[in-house]
């Protein structure tokens, strides 16, 4: 258990190191005009990237020796719950471009509720429909946010 947790933290620290290196690489590829050589567009990216690199390396060292200090190590992941929520998010992204925001919301809402332990998918879908419609009307009509076209949205 402990070993596995440490592997998680190692992966997270490595992700940050990778981001720092990516950021350094991008800094190097910013073209510098000689006029701005000293205080040009690269100075700040250098600072930010180097800072990220330094601290992610410290984190990497912490992960390699006993893990990040002060982090609660009792939690395990509930993959079923997480899976349902993730499925809802994917369905949302797929449906929002095809059937439109409201139907995407129904799927997202029902899957998320399921992930959090609700056992009544039909009722959840209906509530999701209500929330989706209310959100659509509230944001699209009142705030003027464009949340795309769709089957129901066209009718409203």
């Amino acid at each position, binding site marked *: 258990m402990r070993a596995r947790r440490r592997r*998680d*933290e190692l992966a997270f620290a490595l*992700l*940050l190191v990778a*981001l*720092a290196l990516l*950021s350094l690489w*991008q*800094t190097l590829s*910013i073209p510098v*005009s000689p006029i*701005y050589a000293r*205080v*040009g*567009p690269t*100075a*700040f*990216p250098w*600072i*930010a*990237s180097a*800072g*990220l690199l330094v*601290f992610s390396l*410290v*984190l990497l060292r*912490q992960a390699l020796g006993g893990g*990040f200090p*002060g*982090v609660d190590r009792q*939690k395990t*992941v*509930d993959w079923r*719950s*997480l899976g*349902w*929520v*993730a499925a*809802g*998010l994917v369905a*949302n*992204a797929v449906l*929002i*471009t095809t059937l439109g925001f409201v139907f995407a*919301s129904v799927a*997202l*809402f*029902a899957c*998320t*509720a*399921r*992930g*959090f332990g609700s056992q009544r998918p039909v009722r959840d879908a209906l509530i999701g429909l209500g929330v989706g419609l209310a*959100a659509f009307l509230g*944001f699209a009509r009142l*705030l003027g*946010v*464009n*949340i*795309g076209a769709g089957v129901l949205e066209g009718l409203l």
Partner: protein
Amino acid sequence: METLALLAGGFATALSAQNLLFAFAGCFLGTAVGVLPGIGPALTVALLLPITFKVPAASAFILFAGVYYGAMYGGSTTSILLNTPGESATIITALEGFQMAKKGRAGPALATAAIGSFVAGTIATAALTFFAPVVVELALKLGPAEYFSLMVIAFVAVSAVLGSSAVRGFAMLFLGLVLGIVGVDLQTGQPRFTFGLIELLDGIEVTIVAVGLFAVAETLHLAARHRYGEDELLPLSGSLWLTREDFARSWKAWLRGALIGFPFGAIPAGGAELPTFFSYYIERKLARRPEEFGHGAIEGVAGPEAANNASAAGVLMPMLTLGLPTSVTAAIMLSAFQSYGIQPGPLLFQTQSDLVWSMIASLYIGNAMLLVLNLPLIGLWVRVLRIPRPQLYGGILVFATIGAYGVANSVIDLAVMYAVGLVGMLMKRYDFPVAPVVIGMILGPLAEQSFRQAMTISQGDVTTFLTRPISAAFLAIAAALVLAPPVLRAHAASRARARSSP
């Protein structure tokens, strides 16, 4: 007296029917999101950012200010009845508040929290009213080098002072700075960190990151550990009126809380967390019956609640006078200013005098509204607290979708939000703070601007930050912030914990 005239002008704007409605809507929404676990004022303001295209700036900021204050009130309700602090600022409230509720004294706990918030919020708003013009006078004398050093203080404060680990805080700060660089460089017009993608030329949308980090990450985090820990909602018990004794024990704590909270919020080392610790510590020291602490002492609710509201008002001081946000919500408000093409900073009080003063006036109005919303209408919020978790998080994700997809109707934005949410979930899991990312991302470009201006003035001499005395003093303060507070806080926290666990 000029200040009073300006404030009166602000009231004239803020008291218009439309703006009163915005203030009410903000307070109402703010209390609701404060009550609901998992969402907070930062997320709400981020979701409401599109309103900046629709309504005049004054109305939008009145709305945002209402949300900001409202969430502070609502958060205490959750802490007292559910023992799940909605925000770090109300952790301390939960210590005594939940114990009071367990003993059937939820009513007085909620009352002292709400009235204390009102008293302290009003005092702090008054302090903001009268000190802000003074700070502006001073701020106008600061050059780019001083500004940069001041921002360093803010960066250090959010990264090292708040949160449990300075290393994790700084790592997140630099991550935020890197994210802030993405897009076209304003001075040279060169694209940076865009990987040749046109979508990234405008930079990363603040809304998408904020919604991803708060809503999506929180939902994923809770789903991942969903079977661990069920919350117990205590009934609303006891009279909402304070007895003579409760009042006698509360009022001094309110005043002391206000005095502690405001300065903490106002110096750019802010955060509402530290002052609540200090207030709790002081109240316990001064209490006539310190043995009650840990078992539901009303002073332990009154003081910290007053302190966190006062510091919320305090945070608006550097935000309005210097353009320096020290909390996530303030940072997102700053990006709202930018969306109106307004550059926050000392000139704001001259160029946007109406806007600033109507916002400050609305804080007084909002505080009064919130007192009414949170005491007589407390039953409503208890019902909001009863929204079952499955449906609550379903709804949160639907609103999150609007936040990301509404920007440009692009599935790529949605995917970016999911990715940010996934990283945010890992951050929560390993106890990485979120605030430095958001503040680094929003404040980073401004810091870079000051940095480059200062360097241009000094003709590329980096020592300018150390040879200019005010700038050097700011940097010294930043250095002290890294070293001193962790010690102090560990001390206060361990004492508080030792007392609360009998």
